[in-house]
């Protein structure tokens, strides 16, 4: 009511100035009525357009817009995973991945930079300027200049401030033990994928899984918030091998010295732990440096302990004798006539001993390594039993210790054995084994007649053995093996001062073009140390010694002695013999 009154008052004020609104001539103009409708319609369509646009943005292209928005503040980070370390049994690092960077370039941009910068870049990348320019001379927009560049070099490259040059994070694997350990550990390629040995065998557990996370970054590049789901990276698992760095070094230097001393083509040695079946050392010569593989040859790469088979020769004799002892066919003192002529005819073939031994007992057959003696023992037994003995000892059996390239060797089925072949096999001809198989089979004698699986990884549980011969037989064979290194045996050079050791030599003629060579040999020795309480089985193989000495007793036995002496000392094994100085007597002449 009040307001109405005021209005009336205002009207009066306006009116008092002389112009009356109600009578404004403008209002008197009558507009065509369609004009207001047009305005209304235009306004309406404008609103419809706005509504339509809003609908378009909110409903139809919403996803696209949100994505675009997110891409302006969200970043997806890749979280790299490190490949697991490889360590020896005492935790010493044998292989470890360290972050490095790959340098890549956009060629056109880099080439636009001043030449002196390119010169400096070439120097930092350890290549000539011409090489660098050749790499940049490409139609592609992405060129790797160098991979696995270490971080301190990257810092220097960044200081050059070259356009079109960028880096990508990657890992480089380092092998601190280098050539000594490489046949055990192996190596990875530039993509961090295992290529050899344990790096290859354990690829699945060593490799990590890369993760990723979505984050919001602020203007300064700080991460301020996690958004959405993140995937945690999983680093690869560390691997603890069975190998002992110290023993490995000892084995490596021993075999290296042997190959050089006897002018051999190659050599290999393996050390096993008698109680756990762990491979404590596995050495090869020639070898290579895994950190620099530019001049790598197949010869160097070859892991002779595992991938090469050879005819073991006389190192197999104890198995025939053990079988005969175990089945009570003979006793260590049973006498055999190994003939005074050193010749023994089986079928159409003659088995020879280089030195005739006449009437000797079983123990002496092993000590003197008489082919005739062991053939006579073998021929008294059915082939099937011998075949079973070989098979149980792991010969001709596919190895199950998960090492790439491991071979099974060859033992022919017993049904096809002719008597002369059976005799040959009793002294290790016509059968092939790897050095690792040979070493493992000697566990039967080193332990109390059972054989256990081998392991390349540290063993925490006591392995379960499979009985092959009785503990009594194993002890009898051990006693015989000890006589081999004593005066009168074929491997007097295998004696170790301060310790009682035992073993068996083997000299095999190499098969060249399908025939036994008269000038190429493989000398081997498989031994047990110390005898009073066996701790190690050590097998040594020297391939093709071209010096004046070529027998197992001459080349492999002294290598075994050097290896065993150092290994026993390194492992703190207390001496079990009072003999501390050894004067080498001439070893008895051995047979094959």
């Amino acid at each position, binding site marked *: 009511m009040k307001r109405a009154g005021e209005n009336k008052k205002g009207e009066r004020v306006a009116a008092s100035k002389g112009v009356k609104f109600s009578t404004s001539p403008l209002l008197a103009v009558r507009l065509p009525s369609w004009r207001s409708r047009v305005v209304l319609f235009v306004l309406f369509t404008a609103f419809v357009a706005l509504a339509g646009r809003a609908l378009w943005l909110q409903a139809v292209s919403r996803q696209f817009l949100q994505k675009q928005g997110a891409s302006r503040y969200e970043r997806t980070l890749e979280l790299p995973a490190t490949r697991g370390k490889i360590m020896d049994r005492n935790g010493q690092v044998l292989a470890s991945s360290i972050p490095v960077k790959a340098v890549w370039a956009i060629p056109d941009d880099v080439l636009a930079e001043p030449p002196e910068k390119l010169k400096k870049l070439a120097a930092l990348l350890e290549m000539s300027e011409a090489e660098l320019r050749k790499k940049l001379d490409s139609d592609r927009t992405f060129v790797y200049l160098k991979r696995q560049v270490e971080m301190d070099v990257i810092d220097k490259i960044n200081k050059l401030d070259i356009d079109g040059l960028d880096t990508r994070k990657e890992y480089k694997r*380092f092998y601190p033990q280098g050539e*000594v350990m490489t046949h055990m550990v192996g190596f990875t390629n530039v993509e961090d994928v295992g290529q050899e040995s344990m790096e290859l065998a354990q690829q699945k557990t060593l490799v990590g899984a890369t993760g990723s996370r979505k984050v919001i970054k602020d203007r300064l590049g*700080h991460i301020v918030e996690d958004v959405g789901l993140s995937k945690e990276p999983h680093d690869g698992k560390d691997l603890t091998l069975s190998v002992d760095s110290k023993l490995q070094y000892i084995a490596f230097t021993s075999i290296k010295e042997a190959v050089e001393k006897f002018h051999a083509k190659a050599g290999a040695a393996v050390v096993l732990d008698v109680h756990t079946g762990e491979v404590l050392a596995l050495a090869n010569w020639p070898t290579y440096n895994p950190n620099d593989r530019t001049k790598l040859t197949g010869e160097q790469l070859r892991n002779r302990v595992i991938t090469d088979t050879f005819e073991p020769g006389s190192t197999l004799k104890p198995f025939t004798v053990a079988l005969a002892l175990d089945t009570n066919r003979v006793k260590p003192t049973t006498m055999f006539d190994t003939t005074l002529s050193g010749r023994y005819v089986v079928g159409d073939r003659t088995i020879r001993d280089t030195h005739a031994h006449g009437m000797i007992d079983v123990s002496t057959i092993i000590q003197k390594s008489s082919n005739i003696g062991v053939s006579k023992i073998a021929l008294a037994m059915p082939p099937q039993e011998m075949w079973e003995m070989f098979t149980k000892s792991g010969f001709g059996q596919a190895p199950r210790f998960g090492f790439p390239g491991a071979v099974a060797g060859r033992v022919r089925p017993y049904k096809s054995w002719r008597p002369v072949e059976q005799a040959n096999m009793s002294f290790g001809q016509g059968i092939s084994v790897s050095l690792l198989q040979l070493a493992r089979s000697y566990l039967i004698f080193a332990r109390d007649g059972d054989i256990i699986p081998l392991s390349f990884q540290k063993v925490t549980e006591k392995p379960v053995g499979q009985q092959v011969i009785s503990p009594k037989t194993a002890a009898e064979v051990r006693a015989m093996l000890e006589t081999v290194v004593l005066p009168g045996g074929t491997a007097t050079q295998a004696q170790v001062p301060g310790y009682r050791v035992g073993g068996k030599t083997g000299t095999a003629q190499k098969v060249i073009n399908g025939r036994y060579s008269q000038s190429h040999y493989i000398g081997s020795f498989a031994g047990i140390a110390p005898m009073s309480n066996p701790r190690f089985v050590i097998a040594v193989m020297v391939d093709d010694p071209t010096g004046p000495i070529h027998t197992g007793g001459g080349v492999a036995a002294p290598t075994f002695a050097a290896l065993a002496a*150092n290994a026993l000392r390194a492992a703190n094994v207390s001496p079990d013999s009072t003999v501390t100085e050894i004067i080498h007597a001439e070893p008895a002449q051995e047979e094959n």
Partner: protein
Amino acid sequence: MSGKINLVLAALLVACALSVVKAQYIARHLFIDLEALQQQARQLDIDWAQLQLDQSTLGKNARIEQIARTDLNMTPLTPARTQYLTEGAK
């Protein structure tokens, strides 16, 4: 009466809104610190791996033997020159 309540609520609302802004700000700062520390942890891991590697490289048996033989003039031990003591023996 209702006008006063509105005023108080409005003031509370503004205070809450400001505290949310503040909390978010602090949260982001703390997150940045966390990130920096995690980065540092990663770097320390890398350094640790590098040091382990260096230890292994410097502690190589070949290097030790070489130094012992040439620099320190040491010779390997032989049982002949060793006196063994057995615990409990008279």
